[in-house]
């Protein structure tokens, strides 16, 4: 058995797939490629495959990572080539590497993501000036509403670094680094709406979310899942 970690692109064509839909599309791609996978035991065997995150419906990603256990002897390059031959439009295997057999679940170690949220602006402003209030605040409380409950969180616990803005022909792209911790996280769309409602950012409820990166942050810095070995 061999453990592989692959970087996949989730493109525009797959934007509206939920995490489960996306995971199923990946599994079917693997089956079409004829890659012999390891399966769990039991009445209902599952392909041994795990993802770095649960990418929400509506979000595209420059790279999403997947760990998979294969029971055949083929090179990483050849596996990537076989997968890309049967990948649906919008899904592409970018790179990969072999891992030691025992690794942690990626979802448990990936704790930092960078998002780009883009939407039309309603007026021309100096975004550097405008974002200061948000970026320099030491604490921002926010009512997080989930179907089950409403609770108050401190946004700055998750958004530690300054948000930056790039304006392009009537639209703005806000780049935000968001921490994903055991106690929770905040969605990029929630930050967008908070800025609109509480900080007078000249934006509307029209936005598109793209995830530029998902990373592992530790004492030594930030790394992509392909840059680490655990």
């Amino acid at each position, binding site marked *: 058995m061999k453990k592989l970690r692959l970087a996949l692109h989730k493109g525009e*064509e797959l*934007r*509206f797939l939920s995490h489960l839909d996306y995971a199923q599309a990946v599994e*079917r*791609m693997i089956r079409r490629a004829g890659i012999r996978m390891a399966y769990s035991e039991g009445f209902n065997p599952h392909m041994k495959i795990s993802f770095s995150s649960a990418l929400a419906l*509506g979000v595209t990603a420059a790279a999403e990572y997947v760990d998979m256990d294969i029971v055949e002897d083929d090179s990483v390059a050849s596996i990537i080539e076989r997968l890309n031959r*049967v990948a649906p439009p919008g899904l592409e295997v970018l790179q990969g590497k072999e891992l030691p057999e025992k690794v942690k679940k990626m979802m448990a170690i990936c704790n930092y993501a960078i998002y780009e949220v883009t*939407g039309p602006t309603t007026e021309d402003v100096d975004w550097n000036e405008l974002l200061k209030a948000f970026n320099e605040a030491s604490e921002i409380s926010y009512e997080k509403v989930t179907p089950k409950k409403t609770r108050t969180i401190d946004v700055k616990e998750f958004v530690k670094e300054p948000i930056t803005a790039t304006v392009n022909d009537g639209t703005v792209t806000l780049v935000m680094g968001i921490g994903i911790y055991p106690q929770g996280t905040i969605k990029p769309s929630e930050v967008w709406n908070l800025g609109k409602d509480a900080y007078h950012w000249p934006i509307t409820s*029209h936005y*598109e979310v793209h995830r530029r990166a998902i990373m592992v942050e530790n004492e030594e810095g930030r790394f992509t899942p392909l840059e680490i070995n655990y």
Partner: protein
Amino acid sequence: MIHLDTAWLQHVQKPARYTGGEWNSIIKDHSTVDVTMALAFPDVYEVAMSHLGIKILYGLMNRRDDVVAERVFAPWHDMEEEMRNRQIPLFSLETKTPIKDFDILGFTLQYEMSFTNILNMLDLAGIPMYAKDRDMEFPLLVAGGPCAFNVEPLADFFDIVSLGESEEWGDEFVDLFKAEKAKGFPGGKEAFLRKVAQIPGTYCPALYDVEYTESGDFKAIHPRGDDVPKAIEKRIVEDVENVYYPTKPVVPFLDIVHDRAVLELFRGCTRGCRFCQAGMLYRPVRERTPEKLLEIAKETIANTGYNEISLMSLSSADYSKLPELVDLLMEEFKDKQVSVSLPSLRIDSFSIDIAKKVQQVRKSGLTFAPEAGSQRMRDVINKGVSEEDLLAACTNAFKSGWNTVKLYFMMGLPTETDEDLAGIADLAYKVLDLHRDITGKRNGSVTVSVSFFVPKTHSPYQWYGQQDVEEIHRKQRYLKSLINNRNISYHYHDGYTGYMEAAFARGDRRLSEVLVEAWKLGCKFDGWTEYFDYEKWLQAFANCGLDPAYFARRTRSFDEPLPWDHLDSAVSKAFLKREWEQAVDASLTADCRRGPCRGCNVCPELDTAIVDYEEGGRVEKVTFGLA
């Protein structure tokens, strides 16, 4: 090409219903083909994508270089609202082309209660509903599927109706369309329709005039001109073994209703259940060989990445080479984590043996359809299944570890008494007791599901007046009073949907107006319990001065002309009449598949024969039609 903006699309439910791009979906440049076709299913994506007919037509048409076929389904309520607010017309999934821009728009008619969705889709597309209001600048509206055999309630909307299996018809029709399009359709739409009507199996409703009696009964339908056929006989594919089969079906991203590869074992079913329209419409039985099926299965699994393959047919357990096929499939797929599933089981011990073989997961329940509770009633409907058969099947199942059995029944069958209904409760208790006796445990469970019988055209019950809804509701309460056990659950639907379905199933052309009226009142997705609005339907009928009871509940006499007589399934009316008489006598008619011909007329009429590999392939025997 229509652009869908993420900003709003991400807020509708399941936007992937509308964005296409699935594996095996086909994109062609419209400027490189001669004929563009939209294949429509009047229900939501998850239902539509589960339908085998669409998969066949999609692959069949797109295999031609001169044709493009794209899919279009009914947008869900929230999406429809967005489209209307944003003035986005109905578009195809593949290239987001407005449906109005296609040459041909084909609908499959599977269920009467989806008819309003057809009108709603036309409206969303900006296509006039009535055929008379459309010239050749608009797409030609084509219909097929089981409800095409009584398309009269939709006759004012459709230009062309294809009766029966359309693999061969489809190519013939497209060839003609292409040739006439190249000439610029000389003589316009009517001239074109007259040419199409020459293709066997084609019904062009506009080429016929309907005559009613003074009292308002259907009297006759007259072709307009000698070149128009008086009756239209259904088409069948004789060589099912070699006919086109879609081994590269579109693989949806969303979880659809039947999300697996489909293997069609055979067409037709001659068990002769008298309530069953499909059993009459799809005759005769024509099997594929196990070798062919294995080849199709291998290709489909390789092309899709599915991990499950379903053996589909009207009665899959009747496939003569089922044990051989199951062995072949299990052998092929044993190391590939592909499971085989049987959607319907015959009520006997043999079926359980097959189910045991293919089913590794024990927790799922088994489903049987005894259809009626008493032996007398089962004989009336020619079900040919006894209580012993059911108990033998259940014995095998319980010994093999199953604990859950689902039983399907119908209510409102001809000659039914309360005693027959009590038989349903009785059977449920017997099955539950059997589980306890065999396993010594009290964790068995039986689900009883009872539907309201809707008499259908082209079946022996086509003359029978449907029972009154209030009577059905009384019967439902009566049966409920007989079932008092927490291990038996009892399911039924309100009868009103069945009543409306019955009206349209045997309706005539006057119902076109009722459909438009119902649609105007807001009826759509009527097959979805939460969206069915009985009051609106009654209002629609009243607005047109018509009574649904006239169509649903009236018992017709044998000599009364029927509005669907000209739409010929090749089963003779005399055969259906004899079956009705046998039903009343609770007398059985045996399956013709392995026995003598019973005189339904299909084989001699269509100059064809049963294909059954237990009998060595094509069965040459003397066949006849009752006259």
